[in-house]
């Protein structure tokens, strides 16, 4: 989910928009500490890369850490999407859902 949020946000993917994106799309208020832990794991696997931005006054002079999906990350996301679609195809319509 975090990888998809980074893809959706493009050039503006740092902690705050990523957690807001997760809140809007999943309804879950993910803690920023957990978001960064997941992003660190994705970076270790070379699925995302990060760069430090400039410090801003509204953040008390602290820099933002921007994330970008790598080509390997994009490939992995596509593979996962394909796998999920084919898995969903085999499942009969659930209760309250159109066929």
């Amino acid at each position, binding site marked *: 989910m975090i990888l998809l949020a980074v893809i959706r946000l493009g050039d503006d993917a*740092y*902690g*705050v928009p990523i*957690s807001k994106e997760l809140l809007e799309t999943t309804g879950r208020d993910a*803690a*920023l*500490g*957990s978001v*960064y*832990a997941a992003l*660190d794991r994705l970076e270790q696997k070379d699925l995302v890369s990060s760069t*430090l931005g400039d*410090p*801003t006054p*509204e*953040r*008390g002079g*602290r*820099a*933002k*850490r921007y994330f970008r999906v790598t080509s390997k990350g994009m490939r992995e996301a596509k593979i996962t999407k394909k796998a999920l679609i084919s898995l969903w195809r085999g499942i009969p319509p659930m209760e309250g859902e159109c066929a």
Partner: protein
Amino acid sequence: MNREWSYPPALAVWFLRRLCPKRNREVITGDLLERFREGRSGGWFWRQVLVAILVGASSQLRLRWVEICFAAAGTALIWRLPWGQIFPIGAMITSMNWGARLQWLIVIETITALMVLPFFAALFCLWRTFGWANLLRIFFICAMLFIAGDLPAIWWNVSHPVISRSQAMWAIPMMVGWIFAALLISARIARRLPSPPR
């Protein structure tokens, strides 16, 4: 409410800046400050800080599990040794002067550091940084840390020659804690030592 100039709980920021892992400390502090100024509550800020510290600690545990296991095993080994039989100094130490106590302390802690040296050698082999110079360095560091940890105990022993049960309740965990900390610090330094030239 315009919270542009509001400040988050100072104690929470203090905890965050000291207990959150260094890598994400600045960016998480900045992100939390940004969201707090968008109108989040102090309670929300505290929750975020606690999660950041706990998640950071668990990721450190995952990254440093070798050092932590090493320190725990070393502490258990040192603590379980029958020191009273090896060095029957318990009865003697109170009658010694400061110089003699210090000499004993250096001898005992040097031997303790020598005892854990084969385990450090195993760690170096695991990390492929084994070299005699590295082993010597870590031996000195470990011995120094052990001695530094024992100095307050020796000083305290001057005024309290006999340890009561209630004093042992906090003195023993402190001693065990220091052995663990000394081994953990030594192992972390050992990990940073460079590979010897081939």
